[in-house]
């Protein structure tokens, strides 16, 4: 197989780069080792925030790309038809002596180009956020901060990239990179060799391993785990903004925020782990996250029962301390886009533009496509969005949108089929595209139904449907097999 630009990694960065490059006349291929986009450890498990950009040290790539990315997300979210809510953030000082930190961050934000930062005092703070800890002294208000769904964004970016000609290959893992005469020539994968002129390494947690395949060893990625607790949508308007504590030495601290889907999440904590696949949650981790949450919103301590789920993500912490977005002389044709931890999600659109520029500088003639289609149709949720009149119009066209399968989130068979049409082949793939299984019963009711629909649409036996690819099969035996073994019926 041959391509011009091969992007390794289907997380938010890889998909953002794909979509950006799909505006131009180059042949682009994206490979992702898991069964679906965003199935890795960072894109689908983070705080889902589009940051304002005052945190990062001025002069760093993170500091340059974050406010720019924040700005770009408005248009991008609207073109991709994904929900993005600019609810603003409050970084809260609970002690008088911490107010100077707010002032420092505000100054830093100014240097980084973050607009409209303001320090809000006690009384007004509580008006903005009635359930905030009453001991809050002041808060740094950043109106440009917002919330988004990171895996929905990555999946939408990949869909739009595909719409515009990008080839997306799932379950395709880079195993080696062929460097000849000082040039990266091809990427060997578990499904064959792909010849390419340029390799863009956006492999997240494994970016250092992919770089090593090309003989590059100037950075290392350490997985830094963060655990989260998810609250029931029932909590309603308990929290209005993204709430930050004072930043810690290695992370932004335990946040409490509404999600774009209406839940509240708390987290993350931060500690380094050895295994890049270690997405385990711990009881001490959950307690730490909840304690941090209670400091910001004490009311949460009274609704422990409203926690419906918990999860963990891994930040790809770079040994260099900052984002790595650069091309190399040796080997030529290799671009690293690595160590994109927080504010990676926010910076993604800006980083994508940076990569396009680098390719331009490397001599790739990027001619704009005349037929680039920026708009992506979202999967419709006529019942979930509870607009009976709008739903009636939709149902007249496709009545399967009237068969509710996930009762907690009101997801219909029509949406599930559409998700499968858009490359979902697993239970989690359907879950991330439709929210089926993310409600209060966590898939208890809908899982048998979703499994059957996936099997039917893909023409495979139900026993072959997995949770998220690999060996994550859900049903191990069909009826009676354990009692009488395999038979030729």
């Amino acid at each position, binding site marked *: 197989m041959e391509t011009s630009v091969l992007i390794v990694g289907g997380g938010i960065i890889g998909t953002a780069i794909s979509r950006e490059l799909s505006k131009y006349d180059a042949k682009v291929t994206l490979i992702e080792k898991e069964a679906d986009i965003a199935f890795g450890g960072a894109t689908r498990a983070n705080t889902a925030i589009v940051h304002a950009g005052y945190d990062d040290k001025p002069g760093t790539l993170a500091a340059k790309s974050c406010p720019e990315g924040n700005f770009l997300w408005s248009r991008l979210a609207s073109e991709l038809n994904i929900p993005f809510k600019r609810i603003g953030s409050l970084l809260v000082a609970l002690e008088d002596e911490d107010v100077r930190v707010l002032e420092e961050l505000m100054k830093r934000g100014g240097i980084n180009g973050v607009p409209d930062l303001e320090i809000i005092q006690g009384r007004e703070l509580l008006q903005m956020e009635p359930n905030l800890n009453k001991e809050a002294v002041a808060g740094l208000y950043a109106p440009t901060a917002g919330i988004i769904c990171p895996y929905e964004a990555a999946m939408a970016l990949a869909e739009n990239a595909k719409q515009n000609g990008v080839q997306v290959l799932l379950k395709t893992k880079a195993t080696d990179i062929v460097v000849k005469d000082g040039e990266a020539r091809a990427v060997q994968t578990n499904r064959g060799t792909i010849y390419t002129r340029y390799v863009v390494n956006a492999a997240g947690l494994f970016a250092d391993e992919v770089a090593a395949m090309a003989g590059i060893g100037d950075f290392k990625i350490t997985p830094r785990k963060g655990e989260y607790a998810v609250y029931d949508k029932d909590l309603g308007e308990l929290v209005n903004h993204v709430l930050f504590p004072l930043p810690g030495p290695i992370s932004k601290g335990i946040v409490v925020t509404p999600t774009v889907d209406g839940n509240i999440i708390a987290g993350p904590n931060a500690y380094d782990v050895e295994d890049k696949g270690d997405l385990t949650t711990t009881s001490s981790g959950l307690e730490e996250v909840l304690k941090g949450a209670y400091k910001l919103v004490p009311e949460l301590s009274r609704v422990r029962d409203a926690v419906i789920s918990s999860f963990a993500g891994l930040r790809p912490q770079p040994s260099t301390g900052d984002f790595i977005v650069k091309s190399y002389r040796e080997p030529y044709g290799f671009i690293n886009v690595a160590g994109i931890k927080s504010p990676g999600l926010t910076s993604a659109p800006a980083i994508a533009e940076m990569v396009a520029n680098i390719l331009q500088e490397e001599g790739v003639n990027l001619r704009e496509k005349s037929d680039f289609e920026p708009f992506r149709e979202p999967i419709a949720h006529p019942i979930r969005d509870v607009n009976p009149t709008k739903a009636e119009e939709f149902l007249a066209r496709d009545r399967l949108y009237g068969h509710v399968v996930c009762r907690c989130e009101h997801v219909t068979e029509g949406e599930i089929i559409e998700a499968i049409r858009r490359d979902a082949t697993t239970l989690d793939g359907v879950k991330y595209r439709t929210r089926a299984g993310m409600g209060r019963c966590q898939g208890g009711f809908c899982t048998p139904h979703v499994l059957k629909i996936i099997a039917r649409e893909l023409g495979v036996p139900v026993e072959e449907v997995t949770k998220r690819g690999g060996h994550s099969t859900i049903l191990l035996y069909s*009826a*009676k097999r354990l*009692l*009488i073994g395999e038979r030729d*019926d």
Partner: protein
Amino acid sequence: MKTETETREVVCILCPMGCEITVKVRDGEILEVEDAGCKRGREYSIKELKSPVRDFFTTVRVEGGRTPMLSVRSTEPVPKDMLMACAVELAKLVVPAPVNIGDIIVKDILHLGVDVIATKGVERA
């Protein structure tokens, strides 16, 4: 050969009391029943030791039906130690649709003098 007296424990399930009944047996003969809260419990514990029985119920595969499985039960309880044998016997079966509730699926299963009947109907697909 001198035979031994065996002491066995039976937990009665007939009522919420859940009496733990002690039964002394020798040579298959009941010698003594202790700690039974009532006469029914006493009788139950003796039956449990002499010839324990259980309700038998499982599913059977269906061919050509609206649903792939048919729930079935035995018309009378079966000996406890024959439960798995009955399960294996029925596992070999594939019943053609349609099936009506009450239909005899297997007559006199494993010569136990008990039938296996359908507990639901399955229409043809």
